């Protein structure tokens, strides 16, 4: 079943024509299968008109706040032609760009050993470690990064906020 059907029927602003009922001959499934377009012409009382009027943006916002991600994605895919191009919600729902990288991680066993042995003396601090050496520590990450900016390293330090 299209998850979008439940999504629309669940909305408090859902119009009667969105409710699927056995007595209703129109196939909403078929209607929802067609992405709406702002240019679409439709009669005043058709399902297509209702689809155009549905408050997609506000309902997408509600879905995101409720963590109903699958439904948000489904609704966004369905109605993306009706969402303003500059709506920030587009960024939130667009698939992320990703690519493989040749960066290599470092074995951090030495840093972990340092943290296990020395954390009690640095509670609440940010520390930067390279191997078993403390490169810098500070009450704030900003200050720590300022300190690190004047140093040179072979490899990236592990930066950790000690609880």
């Amino acid at each position, binding site marked *: 079943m299209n998850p979008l059907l439940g999504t629309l029927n669940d909305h408090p602003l859902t119009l009667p024509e969105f409710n699927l009922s056995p007595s209703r001959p129109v196939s909403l499934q078929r209607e929802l299968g067609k992405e709406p377009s702002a240019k679409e012409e439709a009669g005043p009382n058709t399902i297509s008109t209702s689809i155009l009027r549905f408050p997609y943006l506000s309902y997408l916002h509600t879905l995101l706040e409720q963590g109903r991600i699958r439904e948000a994605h489904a609704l966004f895919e369905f109605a993306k032609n009706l969402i303003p191009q500059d709506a*920030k919600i587009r960024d939130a729902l667009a698939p*992320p760009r990703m690519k493989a*990288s040749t960066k290599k*991680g470092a074995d*951090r066993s030495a840093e972990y050993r340092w943290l296990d042995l020395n954390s009690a003396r640095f509670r609440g601090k940010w520390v930067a470690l390279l191997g078993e050496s403390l490169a810098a520590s500070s009450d704030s990450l900003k200050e720590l990064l300022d300190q690190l900016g004047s140093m040179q390293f072979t490899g990236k*330090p592990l930066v950790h906020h000690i609880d």
Partner: protein
Amino acid sequence: MLTLNGERFTAGQSRFRDQAPGALEPTAKIFVQVEFVNIEMTILAQIDTGAAYSMLEAEVAEALDILDGEGHVVTVDTRIATIRGRLERVPITLVADEGESLDIEALFFVSRDWTGKTFLGYTGLLEHIRIALDPPVNLFYFGQPR
């Protein structure tokens, strides 16, 4: 590389830490290494498949200069409080010890009011990649879907 039914499933692997190093809170969790663009550091972030969103520790967000960004505003219920913040795209690298690392523009919830750590959550990150765990040997496998 991890294969499934003879085909590549993930391309990178890293060793994860199953307890926050040096932390007073002793329960087991999964911490992996993450790097950010423009900041020469590696941090540990907690994998949390139960979290709706990835969360960025406020000071890290400040260092990345995205604490007062322009992302979509949402309110999120956390174990600490209900807080308001923004959803921001943050380029990160999941760092591999073997195989391929993964650069991804992950979606993070960013807020001055988030006093917790950095979490890698479901929406905008884990939902888009493949992951697998081998807990007896603390290995985290990851990669992009083919």
